[in-house]
């Protein structure tokens, strides 16, 4: 994963609350077995009209939104399904950060894993950004991950929260699986000292009847 420190770029505002992951990417785009090309499905029902033509009124389709790397949206962004395809699609489209007054838990967790930065700001800051964007659709913002700040168009710096571990991983381009793999000794110790409630492979061996005995033996 590429390290992230500063994100400076053009913002686009999608002023809708509770944007769910079915809007971000509908389920029919989830039949892939890799991560590539998901941008084609991003906000598909909003970007295109029923006849398949581009919807010129959708914020991402306006000419001034071309090249935007920061998405600003209403509260509870990413609610619904746990599909990581949602942050994959946003990233594939070119977004590097999403700014919102709040995020759904699973979306935030997924986004942090892949280096799409979720930036939580106060509702009043969000309202300001929406108002500013209305008069300046070329609005640029700078997000400094190390300092945990967003620089607003008027130069003010707003701080945002981020979990210390996720921040470390993003700043250094470290993926979290590496950290888990390093816990091998503790994991093995846990396994040695805790009973196993179920053994799924007992099914394929046709021995589910014996499974109960296994559960107490550890």
């Amino acid at each position: 994963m590429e390290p992230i420190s500063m994100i400076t770029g053009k913002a686009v505002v999608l002023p809708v609350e509770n944007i769910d992951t079915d809007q971000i990417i509908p389920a029919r785009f989830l039949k892939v077995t890799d991560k590539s090309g998901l941008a084609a499905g991003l906000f598909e029902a909003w970007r295109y009209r029923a006849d398949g033509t581009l919807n010129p009124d959708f914020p991402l389709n306006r000419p001034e939104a071309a090249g935007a790397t920061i998405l600003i949206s209403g509260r509870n962004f990413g609610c619904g399904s746990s599909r990581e395809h949602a942050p994959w699609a946003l990233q594939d489209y070119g977004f590097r950060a999403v700014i919102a007054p709040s995020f759904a838990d699973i979306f935030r967790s997924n986004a942090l894993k892949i280096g799409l930065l979720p930036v939580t700001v106060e509702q009043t800051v969000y309202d300001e950004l929406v108002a500013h964007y209305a008069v300046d659709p070329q609005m640029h913002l700078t997000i400094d991950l190390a300092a945990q700040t967003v620089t607003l168009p008027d130069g003010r710096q707003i701080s945002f929260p981020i979990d210390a571990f996720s921040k470390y991983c993003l700043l250094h381009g470290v993926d979290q699986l590496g950290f888990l793999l390093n816990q091998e000794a503790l994991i093995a110790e846990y396994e040695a000292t805790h009973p196993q409630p179920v053994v799924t492979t007992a099914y394929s061996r046709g021995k589910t009847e014996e499974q109960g005995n296994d559960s107490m033996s550890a």
Partner: protein
Amino acid sequence: MSKPRTLFDKVWDAHVVRPETPETPAVLYIDLHLIHEVTSPQAFTELRQRGLRVRRPDKTLATMDHSTPTTPRNHLGIIPVVDPMAISQLEQLRKNCAEFGIPLFELGDENQGIVHVIGPEQGLTQPGMMIVCGDSHTSTHGAFGALAFGIGTSEVGHVLATQCLLQRKPKTCAVRIDGRLGPGVTAKDIILALIAKYGVGGGTGYVFEYMGEAIRSLSMEERMTICNMSIEGGARAGMVAPDDTTFEYIAGRPFAPKGADFDAAVARWRTLPSDEGAVFDHELTLSASDLKPMITYGTNPGMGIPIDAPVPRPEDMPDARSRAALDKALAYMGLEPGKPLLGHPVDVVFIGSCTNSRLSDLRQAAQFFRGRKVAPGVRVMVVPGSQQVKRAAEAEGLDRIFKEAGAEWREAGCSACLGMNDDKVPPGKYAISTSNRNFEGRQGPGARTMLASPLTAAAAAVTGVVTDPRTLLN
């Protein structure tokens, strides 16, 4: 005397491999990892690229449910898959399971079904366990007093490789539901009413523990319906303390402990309920006695009303943002503010999904189909949650009741819940659905979804319009 703990605290504490610190999240051990075809392929790719094995295939189980068709079997007894992308995704899962030694319930297998239906039905879901799956409705398993939640594909890879997950401890929220449900009002109405009251973001950052008289009197299948939709209220997990209802449900299932082991397990499980005086970070309340059948009118599960109430008017909303959200939702739904939903025509009825596809759901729905016909012009899909549910329903003749009424009796799967297989609601058409999400396009592009209970769905199926199910009760 140690500090009183909640059910959540006890399950969390029992799975800590490495405690959380300000710098690092907790490393938690996972007892059961359920996987399916949609959110796992990229995780297996990651494993291969890094030369990693699946650490505990014996704690992993795969099923096929999301992209699978629910078309009735052909003359060879095979469920035909025609979508090339679905074929490739299912084949990939087959290959991954074979290579890494993970047991798989294949499409059409006697145990195959929706991942959140098969776990409990096999006795794999047990109190006190930590269960994850790349699916947000993993919250369903919390009905047994397990801590169960949905994860993303990166995390699916973490669990495959290490059987562990990195998590910050969430906050706890007691959801107290007192009183008793009236006739024709169901568990689905409890959870729809709760989300209507507190919103789709109300539970963000929390794990719900459902408690109170109404919850105690519910069956396991009803508790699963409620825990299933915790995520629609923003909570990643929902739990119910295990009790005799739980233990009776588990007893005798294939993966349940047997004999003396079962008794020992029950003794352990009895220590799980929240201690007297345990402190929750937050509390929500709802009175079951006051509830009516619920239905949604909008494009998120929080946009729900009692079935006899009018659709809200933008001018009644508290602020400009909720007015804008309502305007947008009603435009999509093609509904007029201030008008009742009762009597509104319905085009499709879907009875199924991990929320409401279990035997008791099908029995409830069947009572309105018995001796009646599906209303002209209405397509009714009845989709059992698993092959086991299907066989059990057929053993008591429910399939004949549905088919004689003119409804489709289909194979097990997620079906029309999510618009990623062949079962869809056509653009602009109105569906009453027993599933969990009414998002724009969820059941197909342009589909207009109204969420409701199996009873309310069945009532609409035979009348052709939104109908208060209480008017059809004997």
